[in-house]
């Protein structure tokens, strides 16, 4: 259906249902329980899940299919964001022009960067993309301040031209909207002790993500996708057959750059602000980690990886010692203090530690990422190799060490 074969359609359907029902799924705990701390079903986080999901899906089209590891994809996200915010400052607070422009500008930028960087392969390619991204970051932070706002970034202001919009009323900065529907608009449904928030911006972003996901399945299953896999498995042999692989890899690069730009545009649409650190190498590294954590070359893995990292960042960092003390108040004093002291190292200001440990645990115990590892545990270890081929990964040349 929709040009998807059975298992792919089933996967798409599952993702669609999960995405649309996210306000319920992410808020499993009643507001009054102490576990409500772990609820992730508020607009900002839900928006970030799907937006970084888009970013990772796009990254996976390049990395998962061709094996080219870009270490500078955050630059395209950043450039897309800047394009979007300028549309909002100059044209209108309607998100449509902003999103379209972010995809176009990021596409053009990735065309230039890709055209140059794809002259090299392997680690040399990675460093070229890293260099472009770091230059973009450094310049946006400093000498390009007139265009980028530098450290403080760009936000819509009252005195922006916004030629398509009516003048703002009452000294209020207008909200980002979709033909009048504010992105910040939410409705809360209270069921007993549960409160489920349905946010307009989230659903806009979620629909965009589903489209992006659908396109990525089509790309994975298309002859073009096959060609990209061929690049990954043996580029040299492919070149001997007389095929020039560069147009294919460049196309993949630009597509993934446009996905990044789309994510950048959506970030601005949901939260009207851009800062240059969106392009720092750690941001590029983050999408690499998201993709690997979820499962390189799998369809759904990158989305899971993105959600996982964003959840950790936003939920763990807010658990402070006071919250911990509340949880363990039932223990005797000394024991509670000890438990709080130990757990305190892993949450709140120590949330990075937990993140690092999880990276290590996942890669040690779930080789191939969350999806691949999950599958492996589910079906037993014997059919590993065949599934790897199926999911678009080259089989390891020898058996994985230990």
């Amino acid at each position: 259906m929709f040009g998807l074969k059975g298992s792919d359609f089933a996967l798409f359907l599952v993702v669609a249902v999960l995405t649309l029902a996210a306000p319920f799924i992410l808020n499993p705990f009643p507001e009054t329980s102490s576990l409500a701390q772990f609820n992730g079903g508020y607009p900002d986080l839900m928006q970030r899940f799907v937006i970084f999901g888009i970013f990772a899906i796009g990254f996976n089209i390049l990395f998962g299919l061709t094996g080219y590891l870009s270490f500078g994809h955050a630059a395209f996200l950043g450039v897309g964001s800047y394009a979007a915010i300028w549309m909002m400052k100059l044209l209108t607070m309607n998100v449509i022009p902003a999103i379209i422009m972010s995809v176009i500008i990021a596409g053009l930028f990735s065309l230039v960067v890709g055209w140059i960087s794809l002259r090299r392969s392997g680690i040399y390619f990675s460093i070229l993309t890293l260099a472009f991204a770091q230059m973009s970051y450094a310049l946006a932070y400093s000498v390009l301040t007139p265009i980028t706002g530098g450290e403080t970034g760009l936000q819509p202001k009252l005195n922006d031209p916004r030629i398509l919009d009516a003048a703002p009323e009452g000294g209020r900065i207008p909200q980002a909207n979709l033909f009048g529907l504010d992105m910040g608009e939410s409705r809360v449904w209270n069921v007993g002790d549960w409160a489920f928030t349905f946010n307009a911006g989230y659903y806009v972003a979620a629909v965009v993500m589903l489209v992006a996901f659908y396109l990525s399945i089509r790309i994975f299953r298309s002859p073009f996708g096959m060609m990209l896999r061929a690049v990954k498995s043996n580029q040299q042999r492919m070149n001997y057959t007389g095929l020039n692989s560069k147009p294919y890899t460049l196309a993949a690069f630009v597509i993934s750059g446009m996905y990044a730009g789309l994510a950048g545009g959506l970030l601005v649409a949901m939260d009207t602000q851009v800062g240059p650190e969106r392009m720092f190498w750690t941001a590029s590294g983050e999408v690499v980690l998201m993709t690997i954590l979820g499962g390189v070359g799998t369809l759904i893995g990158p989305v899971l990886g993105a959600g996982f990292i964003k959840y950790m960042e936003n939920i763990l960092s807010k658990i402070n010692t006071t919250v911990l003390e509340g949880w363990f108040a039932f223990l005797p004093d000394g024991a509670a203090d000890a438990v709080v002291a130990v757990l305190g190292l892993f949450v709140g200001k120590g949330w990075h530690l937990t993140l690092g440990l999880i990276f290590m645990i996942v890669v040690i115990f779930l080789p191939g990422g969350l999806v691949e590892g999950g599958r492996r545990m589910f079906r037993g270890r014997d059919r590993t190799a065949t599934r790897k081929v199926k999911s678009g990964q080259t089989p390891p040349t020898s058996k994985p060490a230990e």
Partner: protein
Amino acid sequence: MEAILLQILNGLDKGSAYALIALGLTLIFGTLGVVNFAHGALFMIGAFSAVTLSRLLSTSYTVIDESRTDFLGNPLKVEMPYLHDWFGPEFGQAIINWSVPLAILFSIPIMVAVGFAMERGLIKHFYKRPHADQILVTFGLAIVLQEIVKAVYGANPIPTPAPPAFSGSFDFGALIGFDPLQIMYPYWRLVYFAFAILIIGAVFAFLRFTTFGMVVRAGMADRETVGLLGIDIDKRFTIMFAIAAVVAGLAGVMYAPINSPNYHMGMDFLVLSFVVVVVGGMGSLSGAVLAGFLLGILESFASMAQVIEVVPGINQIIIYLVAILILLTRPRGLMGRKGVMEE
């Protein structure tokens, strides 16, 4: 002229740090083929072993000084280092002041242990795994190591001065025939440069002139054949890993007086060290060293006011710009070997 000479000195000095870190990284990454994102953390651990030794040496007991008060108006508690009691205040303080050079000895066993633990406990299992897995596991490890240091030492930089004999600067220009007071250069930075040359020379000599080094070099070129000859190459690779850790650690120890160590210093150097290794060319030790000094010197020139005036912002991007230009004109960096990490 003096200005240019000064920047060359600065460049050599920055280059020393880049070259030392890149040297260790290229042993692991360029030759063992492991994308080690935890290499910056090794540098950081080295610097913090200097901090640790200085803390250990100044272990104190408190004395209440009734004549003075602290910020709450209570009698002031004065810290008295045990070393002052044991060796007298002067010699005791001298030992504390010399904690950075002493930390060279202190850090070697620490770095060897860390290197062994990392390789045997973790990296060994990842030689044949995809690079993606190596990135994830070593990045995770890097975060864990830096968070542990943050939990113990806090997030602020910790001043770790050089011994008084090496603090301050001297008239380097007069030494080589310039007008006096034109080229002043800090003692410790020259020490750092000399130390870097020494370590780099030692590593090269070790690989070139010892049987061990010969086997390792053969193993880098063709691991399987060496294995078939009945040589236990794995054990030697473990030792190589430990050596790389020691080189990174020593670079960190000696760097502590130049910039106060903080827990994220490893991450600050991480990206740069990868750039240096790749610009130098994968699998080439001399390439890494050369690239380190080259980028250090170019960075110094780009930061001159006269240059920035002509090309604003050039100091922000010089390293990356040069990296792009070199990689586009020389496909495998300065001295890279064919077929290493090109897929």
